C-alpha cells in the first residue's frame, strides 16, 4: 500500500486532464461530439469537515499512577490538550462521473482533506443521484466509498513515524439548483465522513512499539459547482 501513495496524485491528474479534453471537445464544436466524453459530468466541491475530540476515558494515566501494580508504567503519554476541542477542517474534492441513469451518475472522486496535522487524499468510487432531475431545485444524494491516502512529511521519516491511511465512507445529501441551460448547477450538501488512518512508531532498540489507530468522524458541509 505504501507504494500506492503516488496513486491519488495520478488519479487527480487524470481527472483534470479528462476535464481539459472535455473542454477542448466542447470548443471543437457541435459537429461531432464524442458520445462518452460529452456525457461525462463533473462536480467540484469544497467545504468543511466539522468534528470534535471524543472524551478520553482511560482507566489510568500511567505517568501519574502510584498503584503498586502499575507503578513502573512510565510511558509519557500524550499531553493533555487544553485548547478548543472542536475542529473544522478544509476539504476539497472533484467528482467525474458518467450518467448510468437519468437520475444517477457514477464515477470517481478524489480530493484533499486537511486535518489538523495531516493531509489525506481520499480516492473513492461515487454514486450521485438527483431525485427530480427535471426540476430547477432538486434534492440530491451521494455516497463515496474509498481509501484515504496520507501524505508523509520529512519529519515523519526522521522520527520514524510510519503513517498510513485507511477506509473512507462519505454519504451525503443536499440540494442542487440549475444555473444554466447547459446542465451546470450549484449544489450544497451535508454528510457524514468517516476517515480512518493511523501510524506506527516502533523503536526496537528501546523495546517500544506503538500503533495509533485514528478514526475521524466528521460532519461534512460542502458547496459545489456541477457542469
Amino acid at each position, binding site marked *: 500500500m505504501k507504494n500506492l501513495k503516488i496513486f491519488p496524485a495520478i488519479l487527480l491528474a487524470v481527472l483534470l486532464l479528462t476535464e481539459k479534453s472535455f473542454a477542448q471537445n466542447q470548443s471543437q464544436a457541435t459537429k461531432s461530439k464524442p458520445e462518452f466524453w460529452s456525457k461525462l459530468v463533473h462536480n467540484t466541491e469544497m467545504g468543511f469537515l466539522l468534528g470534535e475530540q*471524543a472524551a478520553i476515558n482511560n482507566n489510568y494515566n500511567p505517568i501519574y499512577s502510584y498503584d503498586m501494580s502499575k507503578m513502573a508504567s512510565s510511558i509519557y503519554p500524550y499531553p493533555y490538550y487544553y485548547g478548543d476541542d472542536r475542529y473544522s477542517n478544509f476539504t476539497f474534492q472533484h467528482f467525474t462521473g458518467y450518467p448510468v441513469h437519468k437520475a444517477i451518475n457514477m464515477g470517481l472522486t478524489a480530493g484533499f482533506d486537511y486535518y489538523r496535522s495531516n493531509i489525506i487524499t481520499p480516492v473513492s468510487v461515487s454514486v450521485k443521484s438527483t431525485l427530480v432531475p427535471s426540476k430547477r431545485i432538486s434534492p440530491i444524494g451521494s455516497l463515496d466509498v474509498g481509501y484515504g491516502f496520507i501524505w508523509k512529511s520529512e519529519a515523519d521519516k526522521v522520527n520514524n513515524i510510519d503513517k498510513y491511511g485507511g477506509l473512507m465512507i462519505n454519504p451525503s445529501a443536499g440540494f442542487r439548483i440549475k444555473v444554466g441551460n447547459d446542465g451546470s448547477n450549484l449544489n450544497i450538501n451535508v454528510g457524514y465522513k468517516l476517515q480512518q488512518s493511523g501510524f506506527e512508531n516502533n523503536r526496537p532498540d528501546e523495546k517500544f*512499539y506503538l500503533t495509533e489507530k485514528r478514526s475521524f468522524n466528521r460532519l461534512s458541509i460542502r458547496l459545489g459547482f456541477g457542469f
Partner: protein
Amino acid sequence: MKISRSFLLLFFVSFIWSCKDKCTQIQTYRTTKPKQISLKELRGGISNGSSVSLEKPGKIYIKDNYLFINEIKKGIHVIDNSNPSSPKFISFINIPGNIDMAVVDNIMYADSYTDIVVIDITNPAKIGELNRVEKVFLNGTADGVTWYLDEQNKQIVDYEWVTRTDTIEVICEGGVYPQIYYRGGGIFYESAFADKSALSSSSGSQSGTSAPGASGKGGSMARFGIVNDYLYAVSNSELIPFNISNLAKPQILPKVNLNWGIETIFPYKDKLFIGSTTGMHIYDNKDPAKPKWLSTYNHFKACDPVVVYDKYAYVTLRSNNGFGRCGVVNSNQLDLIDIEDPEYPTLVKSFDMEGPAGLGIDYPNLFICEGDKGMKVFSMANPLEIDKNKLAEFKNFEAYDVIPLNKKLMVIGKDGLYQYDYSDPKNMKLLSSIKSVVK
C-alpha cells in the same frame, strides 16, 4: 416532499451526534513490576541445579580451571574451562539475587541481595553453604533496577522487567509523540540502556593483580575485590571491608561511606581504585581494615569502570545521549589518568571511543569493550599513543566486560561468552563461544 425533508433532517441530526474523532494507541513497552522476596525465603539456603545454557549472563570470574558466570539475580553457572576450546557446564548454583562473586581457594563469596553467602565449592557439582553474613547491603542495582531491603516487613523489594501492552485513548493528532523513560524501582533509567546496564552495574570480581595466587580473577565491572586477607565489596554508596583470614567466617569491618553511584572496585598494589558515576576514588589500604581516602578524580557524570597499570589509571566514560543512568555526559572516551602521585591524580589524555564499557589489561595489551559496537584491542606500550596502536577489532558481538589471563581472553556480553587466544593479539583466535539463549 415534506416527509423526505424531515427524514433528511433526522438523518443528519443523528450524524451530528456521533461526529467525534476517536484515537486509540496500542503501546507495547518494557517496564518493571515489583516483587517481594521474604528474608526467610532468601535465607532458606542455596541449592545446586543443573546448568545448561546462559540466559542473561552477568559477570564472569575465573579461578584455576573453573569459569563462573553469573546469571543475573538467579545464581552462578560453574563451567569447567580446563580446555578453553570446549568449556563444559558443570552445575548451576541457585543464589537468589546474586550478581557478584569472588573466590579464594575453594571458598566462594557471593552476594544474595542483602547477604553475602560463603559457599564451599570444593565439589562444584555438590556445593554447600558454609556461612552467611547478613545485612551487608541495604540496596543494590542490577539489570537496570534497584532493589532494597524492607526491614520492617522482613523482605526484599525487587522489580522485574515485564513487557506490557496498554491500549489507551488519546487526543487525535495530539502533536507530540510519546517520550519514554523507564523507571526501575524508583530510579529512572534511560530506556536504551536498561538491559545493558545489567552488566555494568552487576559485578564479577577483580581480585586484583596484587591478590595472592589463591584467589581468582574477575572483570573490570567487579564490585568485589580480594586483597590478601581482605575482601572488599562496594554497594551503591559504601565500601565494605571484610577480614577473611578465616575463609569460612568473614568478619565484617566498619563500612566506609562513599558518595552514591559506586560501581566498581579495582585493587592495585596497596591502593583501591573505586569507580563511580561521578569519578574515581583512590583509597590507600596499607591498613587493609581501614582504607584511607587519598583523592577523588572527578569528571562529568558517566559510567566508569577503572583499571590500573603502572602509573596510569584507565577509565572509560560512556555517553547515553545526554540522559541516562550514569548521568549527563556527551562523550564516549577512554581517559588516561596519571596516578603516580595518588593524592593528585591528573588527566593526561582522552581518547575517543564509541561506547566503552569494561576493559582489561594484560600488558602490553589493552582490551576495551565497546558495548554493541564490539571490542577493540590496543597496544599500550606507549600509553600516550593508544589510539594509534589498535591491534584488532571485533564487531560481531556485544561486549561488556573482559578478563585477559594467561593469553586467554574471556569476553562477556548480552550475547554470551567468547574465549580468544591472544598469543598474537593482531591475529586472535576464537577458541569457543557459549551463546545466550534468549527467552
